[in-house]
């Protein structure tokens, strides 16, 4: 008896599940391609290098924040504090910029990461729900940014040229924030797919109990994930401060919502364990392109744009929910 054959009910189900899963994952890509084709056909200004670079640059900081959010959501958690951490990092970097670029960048990143670690410890060790911990951090970190700056924006010192370069420099035709974005997603994608840490994020999001029973250091991974989310939000904040030439304590208000929206639209499920960096990049770009189309159209007021954005998010989530349910019912 070499191989025993089990009743193979799974066979037909598997391909069906695969097709649905593919649709679930690639729906956002299809939408993005369709939006781009529509834009290119309707507006002369859409498919120009300037416009493309513009869209990418405008969305690069949100993209960084959303990447961190992706890691967190893959574990089944949520990070509401990213907008505030972004502000803290920008403010700290601006304040330290008189000492040079390196202390500024390291200080900004380090502070945001440290606050992310605080999130992670409270979630993993003290066992308070992510929603509450990061809600409290949203408030507390904003308070920190306001207190540190006496509620004024802090100018980035002109001496910190490397810091300014982060926000305003270019690599050939590519603005530096865009290069950073691409680099971050490349690393993020590789990490999720090819490193143990990345695989463990999926495992924890799939079933924390199972991951624990299979011997994964769940607490350490969760803490590292929130640290990473904090650091990426911090990076976004530093780039933003560099672009604006000032660290603003009110920067990034409401960005947690935009980041969550981008992650969800991309196809990563809030329940954890399914999705990835590529999906989120597609989600960020899709939302960015739609906004760009609104602007090119010119007749849609910003207020209607908000309405449409909300409606769009709802539509995506409803379709996803249906597909997902079909998938699990099969």
């Amino acid at each position, binding site marked *: 008896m070499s*191989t025993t054959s*089990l*009743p193979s009910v799974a066979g037909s189900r598997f391909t069906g599940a695969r097709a649905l899963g593919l649709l679930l994952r690639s729906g956002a890509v299809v939408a993005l391609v369709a939006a781009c084709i529509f834009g290119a056909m309707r507006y002369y200004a859409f498919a120009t290098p300037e416009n493309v670079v513009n869209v990418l640059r405008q969305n690069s900081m949100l993209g960084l924040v959303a990447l961190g959010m992706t890691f967190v959501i893959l574990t089944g958690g949520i990070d509401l504090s990213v907008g505030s951490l972004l502000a803290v990092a920008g403010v700290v970097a601006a304040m330290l910029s008189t000492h040079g670029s390196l202390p500024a960048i390291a200080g900004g990143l380090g502070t945001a990461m440290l606050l992310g670690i605080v999130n992670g410890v409270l979630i993993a060790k003290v066992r308070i729900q992510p929603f509450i911990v990061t809600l409290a951090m949203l408030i507390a970190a904003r308070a920190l940014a306001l207190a540190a700056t006496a509620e004024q924006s802090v100018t980035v010192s002109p001496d910190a040229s490397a810091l300014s370069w982060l926000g305003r420099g270019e690599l050939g035709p590519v603005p530096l924030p865009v290069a950073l974005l691409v680099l971050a997603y490349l690393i993020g994608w590789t990490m999720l*797919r*090819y490193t143990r840490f990345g695989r463990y994020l999926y495992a924890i999001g799939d079933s924390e109990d199972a991951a624990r029973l*299979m*011997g994964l250091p769940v607490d350490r991974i969760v803490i590292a994930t929130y640290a990473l989310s904090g650091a990426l939000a911090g990076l976004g904040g530093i780039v933003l401060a560099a672009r604006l030439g000032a660290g603003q304590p009110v920067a990034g208000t409401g960005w947690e919502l935009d980041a969550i929206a981008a992650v969800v639209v991309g196809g990563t499920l809030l329940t954890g364990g399914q999705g990835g960096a590529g999906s989120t990049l597609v989600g960020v770009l899709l939302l960015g392109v739609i906004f760009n189309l609104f602007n090119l159209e010119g007749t849609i007021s910003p207020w209607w744009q908000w309405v449409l954005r909300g409606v769009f998010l709802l539509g995506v989530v409803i379709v996803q929910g249906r597909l997902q349910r079909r998938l699990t019912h099969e």
Partner: protein
Amino acid sequence: MTGAAPPALLRMEGITKTFGSARALDGVDLTLRRGEVHALVGENGAGKSTLVKIMTGAYHRDSGEMWLDGERVDFDTPAQAQAAGVCAVHQEIHLLTHRTVAENVYLGREPRRWGFVDWRRMNHETGALLAGLGLDIDPRAVVGTLNTARQQMVAIARGVSLGAKVLVLDEPTSSLSPREVTILYDLVRRLKAQSTAIVYISHRFDELYAICDRVTVLRDGRLVSSHDLASLDRLDLVCLMLGKSRDALRAGTTAFGEQRHAPAASLTAPQPPLLRTEAIARGSRLRGVSLEVAAGEIVGVAGLLGSGRTETARAIFGAAPSEQGAVYLGGRRLDPQSPDDAIAAGIGFVSEDRKAEGIIPELSIRENLTLAALPMLTRFGIVSRSRQVEIVERFMRRLGIKAASADQRIRELSGGNQQKVLLARWLCTEPRLLILDEPTRGIDIGAKGEIQALVNELAASGLGVLMISSELEELVEGSTRVVVLRDGRSVAVLQGDEISQQAIIHAMASERAPAAQDAAS
């Protein structure tokens, strides 16, 4: 095989564990030898799963000692236990359902090349491992798309690949078909030949005697004894588990008594039955169940796991409505599409999963008990507190619900008392038909008897009862008739003297049991 005792692989001595004020384990010893299959048996609450969790690092013992390969060991986490070679495959299989077989097998120690996960090698080695165990499973398949049996095999394969010296199988066959069970046996024998020690937890005596070498019996957190299984007959084993003498066991074991074997008077009368289903079907699990329940009758439903017992109940109650066939209540067609329809028609349903589908844990006994009857207790949109209190007191007294007060949260009660509250939830709606799915599962002996007596009394007062049970004694002694299901179909109806454990087992298992054929018409 049972001659000279091989040296101990794992030894546990004087293991004690306390939860709050309850002592779950009290000085339990266990010795596992290389290459043996060791059965761990005991009634609910005996302490089997606590012992296993301590062995595999999920719980930490309060006192006692543990040796593996002659060395003292102390596991703080499942990871440590696994690293030392002690693995568990739990009843509710703990795998990552959205990930592939290979990822699950190698989780925590993925093969890497230059620091990156080497997917090709991982898939390849998993394939080799599975083939080596005689399993035909694609390493790239997502675990959630596999059936339960295959998932179980994957979990075992993971244990094997971890180099497990001790493998714990907790109720491994609870959701397997007979054919899949033989595959599992093959696998267990293979591992045994490789001198792995296997702890086998099961309630099914056939399995224990088919596959196990020795048995350790626990009762109420204490060690009763360890034996070679070959020298212990079944009745002795049951006696050890229940803590009874052989003579005591011969008498009836349930509180139903024997009197119900006579068909109820209503059966012979020409009035229409209270409940009648005509070939109800839904999906692949429920494929044509026809049965009848008369007022004042207890109709038992028997069948193996997966035979469509629970699905039948849920279809009659409208929780998972039937797609084909018909449900008649009191001669009128009902076909409930939701529980509301069924409740309004006078049907109550006590689910088999008390925790997930029965109690509302944070609410008081009073609110839990009156939940289904609220519409009747409400006047002008306000719940009448006095009527509520009156009903709750009446039923707490009548059913002997033991609690500090009606305000106590239901989650603080014992399983038996919770079950009584859930019964009362339906009784106070004054139903015509009550569907009970495993009414005495996981309940201590005392409460079990009380519930059985109560069901009997209710039927005597004219209520129709449809009772699903996997305990054959309960069906045999409690039912006026027994409907036997197999593969989603009703295959036999036994009544009067035809009802016996043997007849039921025959009908459940065999394709053509002569007795069943006659009765099914």
